[in-house]
């Protein structure tokens, strides 16, 4: 089977912010690297629009519409903040995942060991499979 890698990444933008480049890799860095690799694989799947991966020190963003990075980032941040509030109200304990279904697309947001992940996909994409692959 011929893979069409070019078309998938033509419009994507990867932003890497790393302000502690010479720090010895710790546990969080390892988790971040592993997640980064997993998400890069997921990004190739049909129906996946892009993702945002963010730790305290680094961030990787790969989105189909790079001009809307800010909107996606604000949305992701708000989802995790609001979910935390609701989770506390109903004593859900630690949040494992948040699925936001929109009229056009949906987003799967997670917080793994302080690393925040938001994966954007088409409505018909299989988010349960993605969740399994990303979950620790």
């Amino acid at each position: 089977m011929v893979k069409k890698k070019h078309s998938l990444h033509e419009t994507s933008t990867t932003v890497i912010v790393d302000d502690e480049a010479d720090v010895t890799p710790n546990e969080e860095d390892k988790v971040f690297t592993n997640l980064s690799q997993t998400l890069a694989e997921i990004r190739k799947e049909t129906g996946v629009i892009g993702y945002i991966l963010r730790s305290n020190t680094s961030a990787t963003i790969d989105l189909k519409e790079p001009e809307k990075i800010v909107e996606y980032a604000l949305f992701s941040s708000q989802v995790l903040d609001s979910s935390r509030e609701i989770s506390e109200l109903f004593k859900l304990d630690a949040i494992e995942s948040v699925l936001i279904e929109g009229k056009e697309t949906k987003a799967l947001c997670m917080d793994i060991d302080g690393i925040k992940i938001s994966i954007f996909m088409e409505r018909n994409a299989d988010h349960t499979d993605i969740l399994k692959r990303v979950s620790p």
Partner: protein
Amino acid sequence: MNNEVYSFALKSTLQEIQNICPDVSNSFIFKDGKILAKDETTPEKDIDHTIDAFDSITEKADIIGGLEAVTIQGANGRVNIACMNDFYLTTVSSKEADEKYVNTLTRILIPIVIRLIEKIHPALPEDGTFTTVEPEPVEPVEDEVVEEVAETTEESESNMPAEETAPTEDEEEQFAPEVDPEPLLPEAPVTQLIVENLGGLLVPSDTVRIDTEVIAQWNDLYGDKKLHEVNLETLSGKTTRCKFKPIKNSKQTGKGVIGIPEKIQLTLETSKGELVMVKPIVE
């Protein structure tokens, strides 16, 4: 009074959902930031905070084309906020709850109740101001007055409350079909049941097993008339007619389930966990 009717009907429905699914610990419905109905256990303060948090997401949700549903999965449970006919239903369930079952139940039941109320009371207030109080005892009297006026237009309007004495033409048109004096014919009740697999060596492939409580209701309704067959209809419109017997498994009694052999499931293109509408055939 429509707001109270909505509130009462939705509140009862929420309570029934919690009775059927004890794993659902909290449930409430809101619209435009206002509470329409809530269960007895959830404090209003918590609902207000939830609505605020939800609205914060909604404000930034243009990027996904507007918000339809949110599911927060926590270590101890799950919160689901789903849009239904412009209303938002929130359910909080334990981790053990069957998500598919809860979603099927709520996403079918609530819209049906909303549609029914809209048919009965089409003039839903535009401002969305709903209250969570119980209906006032005088309400049936007012309804009677409205009906009398609609039937005999010459009747004096002085006995009616001010807001109902001067209906617009549109309102009159809306209410007109509802006061049709045509008598309601007794119809076979339609019950929605959840499909369970029915199999085994001695299981006839043309007979379904129905919850004994549902059969008891039919027997109460039709008295000495013999009921042997039912019409089954799926939500996609597939129908079939088959024999029925009471469900054998006592654990499934009162759970709103129907055991369907594989052959009939194939005919209806349905499967375990889905809903079917069941109607007795009275001959």
